[in-house]
């Protein structure tokens, strides 16, 4: 080997990293299957290992040659920077050849493809570090490439597939699907031909009148051109609201629902926040546990409970009042279920705002002697506004994306999230589903962007700018009692609803025969139990990689400088803003055929969980890492530790509590996920949440309640176990990590 060198360089010794990665890649390529038959990822497929393919496929020979060259590069005596550049090019060539091979073979990928992809990326990463292109070491450079590849493949690519499906119909670029959906009355209809009035004209007239009134009032205050702007904003706002109110269709229902739920849940959350920060009454101690409950159970459990309490044979409506009403099936029921489920989110966001407000109010009131009204208008409202907007927008995203409640208590009224589902499952029309998905995505994404980059920033500044340990001024008693009353009503409702699910699971036939029975719980076996354990198993599988990935991304984002960092951060947080149903169709559209075929495997469920819940890991990771003094890592580096050692010996032990919570939260979210997996399940891999939905759909409410109770109790047990292990635990942090 030394003969290849003209001038041997004394100090360059063989590079172990390159030799190991090159060797692993070579072995994996030669000895593992490149293709896969059916669903089992690890089945050995005769005839598809690299050794056998070498003769027929020149590309395969290229791939193995590249891997062998990497080993050689690692062994040769060369200066590191030169070796790095060679490794970089070899790695890139290997990636390109592997992708080319997979695409041209068209068979579902096997384990060899995974090894090759990860291996060649690692070789590229090592090359980037050795050549000095990236000022990090091989481990971090490889992590960056891997994480980037994952985000591309499992977040951006599925979204791209949805976009593509909405404008490509039968292989042709066409706007047919888009126009047909946008024009369909199921999507949005303003001027109902069946009604005698002209809704469009009414909405327009209302808008014009509002604009005129606002303009005149503002002009009277001599506001000049700002009057014009105010008039335009008010006019358009009223016009849109009127059109939504008067119109029909999924768009109208979803948006109106989001607005109503957003406003009411935010108001409730504000009241709760006031109580938690400034109440003198004991009731506030209930806030913690009860606000966690709706967050750790699937939101549709409340929908289910609503049927029990207020449905046709509901305990309250029928049992107590003797009514038989379907009024709670439809938008009203969905709105109530969502308000109950999402008020805690608003509470968690606003709690910080109320804290900050308190100090400001005191200062202003006591030093300036201004009137209360003046303080409210000039100090409190501007301070609280970003937080309130933040809470509203977060709740609106959740409401728009929610799938379970509309399908359980929606009573057949169309909503965007459910139309996506019905377009695929009922009408077998992926293009239509994609168009609905794109509309939904556009709305949640723009809300997400506004929330994150506009309000999120200001909100953050306000909250961190508060002086800590400010004196909390108690609420005036009248207000305290009123607010506590509202809260107690919410508590009673929540307890009654969850209670009805628990009781429903041991009641013979709710609404007809309230005799106690274990028949529903017994009926869970075998299917129900099996599904429950499958869910727990897959969720556990998913929790580990999503925690590790999330933590790694958190570390890269906070501690490492590299080009494309903000893109990586944005891409990985994106899946928080993507409604589950959209992610779901993204996955079936993207991984449905060819080399990337994954549908029908349990792997696709795990992947869906991992990338859906990764932001939870990122958030808890970032929070933990920011609390570790950076000089600890630097001290470790100066004592000759490389970055994996520093991560393992210093960062991970110090962030252990956060890692553990991240793990548990990822697990909880996977267990309770519905919308992103509803398209991905198969009879072999059914999940608890979807099983509950199908029990309800087929009228076995009792069994649905039994499974839902089991799920709820299990989640409570898991959170309590976490509580027992992590001493420094706060229900607020749990909620914040989970939701916001």
């Amino acid at each position, binding site marked *: 080997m030394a003969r290849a060198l003209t001038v041997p360089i004394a100090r360059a010794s063989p590079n172990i990293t390159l030799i190991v990665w090159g060797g692993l890649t070579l072995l994996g390529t030669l000895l593992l299957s490149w293709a896969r038959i059916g669903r089992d990822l690890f089945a050995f497929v005769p005839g598809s290992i690299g050794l056998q393919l070498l003769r027929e496929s020149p590309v395969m020979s290229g791939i193995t040659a590249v891997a062998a060259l990497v080993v050689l590069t690692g062994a040769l005596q060369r200066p590191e*920077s030169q070796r790095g550049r060679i490794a970089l090019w070899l790695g890139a060539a290997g990636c390109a050849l592997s992708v080319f091979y997979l695409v041209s073979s068209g068979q579902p990928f096997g384990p060899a493809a995974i090894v090759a992809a990860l291996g060649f990326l690692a070789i590229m990463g090592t090359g980037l570090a050795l050549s*000095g292109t990236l*000022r990090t*070491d091989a481990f971090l450079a490889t992590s960056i490439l891997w994480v980037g590849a994952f985000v591309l493949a499992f977040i951006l690519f599925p979204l791209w597939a949805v976009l593509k499906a909405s404008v490509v119909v039968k292989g042709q670029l066409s706007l047919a699907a888009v126009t047909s959906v946008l024009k369909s009355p199921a999507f949005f209809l303003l001027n109902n031909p069946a009604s005698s009035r002209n809704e469009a004209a009414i909405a327009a007239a209302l808008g014009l009148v509002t604009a005129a009134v606002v303009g005149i009032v503002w002009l009277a205050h001599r506001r000049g051109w700002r009057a014009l702007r105010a008039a335009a904003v008010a006019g358009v706002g009223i016009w849109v609201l009127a059109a939504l109110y008067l119109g029909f269709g999924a768009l109208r229902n979803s948006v109106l629902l989001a607005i109503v739920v957003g406003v009411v849940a935010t108001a409730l959350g504000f009241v709760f926040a006031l109580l938690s920060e400034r109440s003198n009454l004991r009731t506030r101690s209930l806030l913690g546990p009860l606000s966690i409950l709706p967050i750790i159970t699937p939101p549709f459990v409340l929908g289910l409970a609503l049927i029990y309490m207020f449905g046709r044979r509901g305990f309250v409506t029928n049992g107590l009042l003797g009514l038989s009403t379907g009024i709670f099936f439809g938008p009203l029921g969905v709105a109530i279920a969502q308000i109950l489920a999402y008020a805690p989110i608003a509470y968690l966001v606003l709690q910080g705002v109320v804290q900050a407000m308190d100090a400001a109010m005191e200062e202003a009131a006591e030093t300036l002697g201004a009137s209360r009204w003046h303080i409210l208008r000039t100090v409190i409202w501007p301070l609280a506004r970003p937080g309130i907007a933040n809470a509203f927008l977060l709740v609106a995203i959740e409401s728009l994306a929610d799938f379970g409640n509309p399908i359980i208590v929606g009573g057949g009224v169309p909503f965007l999230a459910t139309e996506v589902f019905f377009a695929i499952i009922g009408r077998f029309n992926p293009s239509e589903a994609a168009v609905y998905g794109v509309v939904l995505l556009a709305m949640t994404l723009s809300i997400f962007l506004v929330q994150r980059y506009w309000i999120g920033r200001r909100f953050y500044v306000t909250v961190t700018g508060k002086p800590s340990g400010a004196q909390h001024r108690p609420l005036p008693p009248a207000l305290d009692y009123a607010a506590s009353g509202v809260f107690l009503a919410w508590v009673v409702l929540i307890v009654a609803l969850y209670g009805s699910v628990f009781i429903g699971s041991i009641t013979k036939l709710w609404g007809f025969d309230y005799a106690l029975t274990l028949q529903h719980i017994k009926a869970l076996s075998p299917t129900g139990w099996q599904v429950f354990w499958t869910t727990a198993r897959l969720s556990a599988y998913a929790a580990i990689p999503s925690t590790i990935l999330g933590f790694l991304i958190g570390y890269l984002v906070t501690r490492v400088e590299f080009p494309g960092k903000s893109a990586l951060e944005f891409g990985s947080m994106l899946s928080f803003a993507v409604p589950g149903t959209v992610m779901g169709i993204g996955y079936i559209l993207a991984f449905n055929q060819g080399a990337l075929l994954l549908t029908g495997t349990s792997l696709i469920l795990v992947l869906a969980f991992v990338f859906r819940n990764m932001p939870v890991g990122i958030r808890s990771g970032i929070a933990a890492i920011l609390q570790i*003094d950076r*000089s*600890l890592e*630097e*001290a*470790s*580096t*100066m*004592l*000759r*530790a*490389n970055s994996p*050692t520093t991560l393992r*010996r*210093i960062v991970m*032990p*110090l962030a252990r509590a956060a890692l553990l919570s991240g793990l548990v939260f990822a697990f909880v979210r996977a267990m309770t996920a519905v919308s992103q997996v509803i398209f991905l399940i198969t009879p072999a891999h059914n999940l608890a949440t979807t099983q509950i939905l199908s029990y309800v759909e087929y009228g076995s409410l009792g069994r649905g309640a039994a499974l839902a109770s089991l799920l709820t109790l299990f989640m409570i047990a898991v959170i309590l176990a976490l509580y027992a292990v992590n001493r420094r635990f706060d229900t607020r942090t749990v909620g914040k990590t989970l939701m916001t």
Partner: protein
Amino acid sequence: MKERAVETRSSMPEARLSAVPVRLENVTKRFGSFAAVDNVTLVIPAGKLVTLLGPSGCGKTTTLRMIAGLEHPTGGRIWIGDEDVTALPASNRSVTMVFQSYALFPHLTVHENVAYGLRIAKLPETEIARQVAGVLELVGLPQVGRRYPAQLSGGQQQRVALARALVMKPKVLLFDEPLSNLDAKLRKRVRAEIRELQQRLGITSIYVTHDQAEALALSDVIVVMNLGRVEQIGAPTDLYRKPASRFVADFIGEANLLTGTYREGQVTVGPFTFPFRQESVAAGPVTVLARPEAVTVQTDGAGLPGKIRTAFFMGMTNEYLIETPAGELTATEPIRARGLLSMGTEVRLQFDDTGLYLLSESTESPASTGSSESAP
């Protein structure tokens, strides 16, 4: 503590033999368009303790971190001994650092903290135990191995941090304001201990501080920095006696800076002319640097006339703030029999040659790296 340290000297191998110099050549570090360190060239002689001194934000820490490898220069080269380490990562540089915050690993005991680097170097466990015990004795903390950092006092934490850095037998030892978290008394003691250890082990050391008293007491050589550039390099006495610029004069020690003129062995300050000769300065307008202890306060006779504005009793000295036609100046004098002069007293001021230095107007911003580059 000193006695014990001397006894265990043999547990540290003679570092003196392997001491190496550190060289910075035109090193620049930019953050965006802002140059935190601007074209710095300097040599840290083998086995010496060199202080980087300057006001807050002048780029001391950045320079130190570039030597450590925690920050990468935008331009220029860094040499440790005869090895160009510019592109080497921090973990391969044979340099260790004592951090301002000590950066002791809170989840590891003192023993584990000190052993951390040795474990990474994969030394046998018995050898690690021997070396850790040796170095803990060296810094005077033989008893605390089992404790966690949170169970130590600030001064003890500081010494553990030093032990953790020393045990690696680094070629270069870096300190970033290691004493700033200690109270004034303790600071003086630890400062003396650091100096003593460094001289005994003969490790090339670079020490960042913004406290000029600390720099004067500790250093073989002081590098004064300002706005990312080197203002002057020299031994503490040189910098004090012969500052190259107003900035250095003002920054190191107390300084009275008066405007005056110099002609043929005569200095004129206000109405007062006195004999003083300095070869390095041309005739014409000059800035006269007079250290407070070089200003003699008399109640009569010849001298610069002035009037006492305020008078302080400082313990060992009296300190006066005096208004003169050439400007305000400070004078200190040992307590004499006559006691503290009262405010408003008319006085005459004489200047003592040893505390006097002239800066010609052209030496305001010198390119003054020359003086100590010839150091070994």
